[in-house]
């Protein structure tokens, strides 16, 4: 897409006739007398350079505008962008005395528009769109025809009545003009409605109409263009019928092309697993191809791209990797927003051109007036009819906004520029009028839209939080409605929806979706997944805020882990009230720790351990160790790879190792000095005390009770000197550790010994306590520092095999020292 983009801009600037620019360039024309070390090669890159520069300038405009929030609150961004276009255009005019840059139809239709359309198709709220498809189509087809015909005929009538003086425009030309003015512009509508947040039904009707009426506009434009060429005399019934037929062909043909490409994309993404890096690119390239293909077949390109996006979104999202989905999402927004910005700025720049300004008060004012009035009439009439068939009628004020939202934009301007000057003498007047209508609708109506919405108290979009019960019940509603329609013997919307769903499940999904993705596709599960993700994110954020959550490597691990945990939890302890089950990940981890008697390790370690527990396979653990052991320097210092953008953790690892080493040295130094301290002293620290001691005084938000309610998990504050916080068991003699803050490496073995029977807290745990001086490792710990790699490995394996209580017991037996003495702080794991 990047190349595509660059190519876009290249052509864009090509069309901007940049050679007019009087920039001095070093000419290579002169014969060289000596080898030049540096040459000035403006000519080589002038086009590309200007393109890039213009993009930069447009985006900087947006940057400046967005920096002033108090302005954008009142004036929509699109209007401000057009205004900044005026200023830029004025500057160019002042320098060159001629307008060298303007928005050309080619650039607009082939390079700027497709991305916006693809974005809106891909991010279309499908259900809403199809629920209101009837209304959208009526407005898009009949409404647009009405706008075109009424505007053309009224202007012609006024012309005949002598309101515009002497103009060389015939009836057909008026109709042609009417047809190019008829279409509501998706770019303008999106730009304005995005900021207003009206209710979704209102939004989808206006927006859907603006997308789908393109087919109508293009047909009307082509038909009338042809009629103008033919001349009034040669138009007969056959030609008119051909015109009507061509409408259906263009509209449905375009949609079919789009659907075909949508299916192709879905199929393609089924098998792009191995080229994940460029996977997102397919969506863009194929989307663009669908646009071009439709254009090549002279079908409606906008319809094609819209339907392509609408169809493929579901399957693409299911088939592709999560990160690719995110990439597509953001890249699309970047492109769409970027070209939207450019379009508006250039709409402004285009205005500063003496040539196009042909003033004819009557023509211009009447056009603005008719556009505005006929839109109202059309919308009210059509919606009045539609309301009789709607379950929930669209309210009157909504209709006002619908009419008011009939913004004209760059599509109209692009079509006006496309007019043939030979056939239409007053082309410039038409361009000028179009621009004025665009400014009128985008700037004036855009600015007044928000106050109007406020004033009329239009229902706004509600911000809803997804909840599972809601989702399930919604699904239930759908099924129920279908059933009730079946029982009462009617064929209604729900009937068709039910049929479609059935068809989709039976034919489309197996065909277009990866088998592995089908599960994700279930929306109840999807909501569940999202909620879990959110939880995990919150958890991580919370942990980071509190200063120690290095153990979470990625969200999915914690999620899988959580899910697994939940199921196990319920299996093992069915009698525990469910509200405890899911409340906080830390609770679970804590619970797990106590249940499996596994002291704190990294999360993945837990997960892996559990896996191994099930399969009773140590292989997993070995593998895990391999993966997570710090790499030796030789191994990890390799270069940059284009196809691998994993974040390099080297730096982090080095730091970690360093910190740990220092910590351990400090500890062993301390313990050597302090000697043994009785375990009791530690037990004395109450929860409360510990909380008070957290440096910034934040109390622990989640103090959920597992077991009979005496385990308490906390994040250690920024002080990760120890990396461990323990919860202090006051009823069961188990020490439950918060899962390893600061532990990245599962093979890191401070707690290699199963600690279920521990009746004391390992000394280093108390290190963060103010009076940690009382605490010291046992004699054994001092005596038995595992200081050789061999010893470490032994410990590691033992540790890794504590998967069940049985094996753990065994391990305990194997361990030479009594379990009551805690293990010593390990040597820097870097040694391993």
């Amino acid at each position, binding site marked *: 897409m990047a190349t595509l983009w660059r190519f876009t801009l290249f052509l864009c600037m090509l069309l901007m006739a940049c050679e007019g620019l009087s920039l001095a360039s070093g000419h290579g024309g002169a014969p060289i007398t000596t080898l030049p070390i540096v040459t000035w090669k403006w000519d080589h890159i002038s086009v590309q350079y200007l393109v890039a520069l213009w993009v930069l300038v447009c985006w900087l405009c947006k940057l400046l505008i967005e920096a002033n929030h108090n302005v954008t609150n009142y004036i929509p961004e699109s209007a401000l962008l057009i205004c900044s276009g005026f200023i830029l255009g004025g500057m160019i005019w002042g320098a060159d005395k001629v307008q060298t840059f303007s928005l050309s139809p080619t650039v607009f239709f082939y390079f700027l528009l497709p991305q916006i359309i693809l974005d809106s198709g891909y991010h279309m709220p499908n259900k809403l769109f199809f629920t209101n498809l009837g209304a959208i189509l009526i407005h898009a087809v009949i409404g647009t025809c009405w706008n075109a015909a009424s505007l053309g005929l009224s202007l012609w009538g006024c012309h005949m009545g002598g309101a515009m003086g002497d103009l060389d425009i015939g009836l057909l030309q008026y109709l042609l003009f009417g047809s190019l003015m008829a279409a509501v512009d998706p770019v303008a509508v999106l730009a304005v409605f995005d900021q207003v947040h009206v209710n979704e039904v209102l939004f989808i009707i206006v927006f859907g109409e603006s997308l789908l009426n393109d087919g109508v506009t293009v047909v009307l434009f082509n038909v009338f263009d042809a009629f103008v060429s033919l001349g009034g005399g040669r138009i007969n019934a056959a030609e008119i019928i051909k015109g009507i037929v061509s409408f259906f062909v263009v509209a449905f043909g375009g949609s079919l092309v789009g659907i075909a490409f949508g299916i192709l994309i879905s199929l393609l993404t089924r098998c792009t697993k191995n080229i994940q890096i460029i996977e997102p690119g397919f969506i863009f390239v194929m989307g663009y191809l669908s646009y071009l293909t439709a254009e090549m077949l002279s079908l409606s390109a906008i319809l094609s791209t819209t339907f392509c996006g609408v169809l493929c979104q579901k399957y693409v999202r299911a088939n592709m990797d999560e990160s690719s989905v995110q990439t597509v999402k953001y890249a699309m927004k970047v492109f769409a927003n970027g070209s939207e910005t450019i379009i508006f700025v250039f709409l402004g720049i285009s205005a500063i051109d003496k040539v196009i300004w042909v003033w004819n008060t009557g023509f211009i004012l009447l056009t603005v007036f008719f556009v505005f009035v006929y839109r109202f009439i059309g919308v009210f009439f059509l919606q009045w009819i539609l309301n009789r*068939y709607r*379950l*929930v009628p669209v309210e009157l004020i909504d209709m006002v906004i619908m009419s008011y939202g009939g913004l004209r934009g760059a599509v109209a301007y692009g079509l006006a520029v496309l007019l043939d000057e030979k056939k239409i003498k007053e082309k410039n007047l038409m361009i000028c009028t179009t621009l004025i209508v665009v400014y009128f609708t985008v700037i004036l109506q855009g600015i007044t839209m928000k106050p109007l919405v406020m004033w009329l108290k239009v229902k706004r979009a*509600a911000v*809803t939080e997804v*909840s*599972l*019960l*809601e989702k*399930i*019940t*919604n*699904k*239930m*509603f759908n*099924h*129920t*409605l*279908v*059933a*009730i*329609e*079946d*029982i*009462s*013997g*009617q064929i*209604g*919307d*729900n009937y068709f929806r*039910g049929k479609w769903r*059935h068809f989709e499940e039976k034919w489309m999904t197996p065909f277009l979706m990866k088998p592995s993705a*089908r*599960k994700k596709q*279930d929306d*109840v*599960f999807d909501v*569940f997944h999202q*909620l879990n993700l959110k939880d995990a994110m919150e958890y991580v954020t919370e942990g980071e805020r509190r200063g120690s959550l290095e153990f979470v490597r990625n969200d999915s691990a914690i999620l899988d882990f959580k*899910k697994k945990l*939940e*199921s196990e939890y*319920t299996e093992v302890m069915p009698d525990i*009230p*469910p*509200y405890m*089950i*899911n*409340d906080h990940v830390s609770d679970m981890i804590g619970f797990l720790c106590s249940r499996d008697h596994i002291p704190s390790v990294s999360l993945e370690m837990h997960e892996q351990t559990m896996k191994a527990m099930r399969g009773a396979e140590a292989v997993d653990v070995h593998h895990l160790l391999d993966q997570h052991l710090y790499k030796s320097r030789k191994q990890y210092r390799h270069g940059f790879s284009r196809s691998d953008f994993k974040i390099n953790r080297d730096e982090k690892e080095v730091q970690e190792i360093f910190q740990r080493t220092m910590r351990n040295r400090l500890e062993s130094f301390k313990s050597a000095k302090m000697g043994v301290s009785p375990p009791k002293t530690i037990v004395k620290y109450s929860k409360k005390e510990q909380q008070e001691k957290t440096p910034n005084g934040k109390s622990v938000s989640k103090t959920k009770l597992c077991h009979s309610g005496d385990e308490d998990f906390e994040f250690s504050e920024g002080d990760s000197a120890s990396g461990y916080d323990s919860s202090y068991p006051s009823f069961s003699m188990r020490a439950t550790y918060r899962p390893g803050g600061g532990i990245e490496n599962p093979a890191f073995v401070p707690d290699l010994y199963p600690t279920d029977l521990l009746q004391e807290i390992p000394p280093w745990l108390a290190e963060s306590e103010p009076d940690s001086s009382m605490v010291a490792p046992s004699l054994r710990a001092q005596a038995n520092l595992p200081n050789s790699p061999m010893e470490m490995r032994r410990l590691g394996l033992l540790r890794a095999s504590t998967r069940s209580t049985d094996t753990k017991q065994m391990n305990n037996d194997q361990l030479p020292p009594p379990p009551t003495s805690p293990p010593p702080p390990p040597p820097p794991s870097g040694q391993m």
Partner: protein
Amino acid sequence: MGSRASRLLREEEIEEIKKETGFSHSQITRLYSRFTSLDKGENGTLSREDFQRIPELAINPLGDRIINAFFPEGYFVLVIFREDQVNFRGFMRTLAHFRPIEDNEKNKNPATEPLNSRTNKLLFAFRLYDLDRDDKISRDELLQVLRMMVGVNISDEQLGSIADRTIQEADTNGDSCISFNEFIKVLEKVDVEQKMSIRFLH
């Protein structure tokens, strides 16, 4: 069947139904002809089997639940008393839950709450979950509904955790069940009026 369909409802009967359910005269007669065409036993009532004969209901995951909803006493009572017949009044009463709320109905006094009010619509949905009619959705009940609606791709384990999470989300009083009040609370923002309504043809 033609003869039965032509056997019209008595006017006063229509009036009563109209009053109770809010359907219009033409809707009632139209639904009555549907009722008689479903009534294969030709005895003026519908049995479970009559409903089950509707082919689309067989593929509806909630088909059986919804059929149950037509039998007012609930499933268990039915099993005991074998009272598995529903007459036209009852038929209409159930369908009335799905009538869209009209503007002039919104300001009626709450004492005579119409069958298609928001609360009644919600209650209908709630009853679809609440199989044992104890006014609570337990984990098991939720799990059953989930099993019906969710594809086979999701394992029992996952489904269980979904159910747990759902209950935990909605449960405010900690009894690990969803009561009707909790149910209403969760669906506060949902446009139930619209989502539980269909257009009945005139």
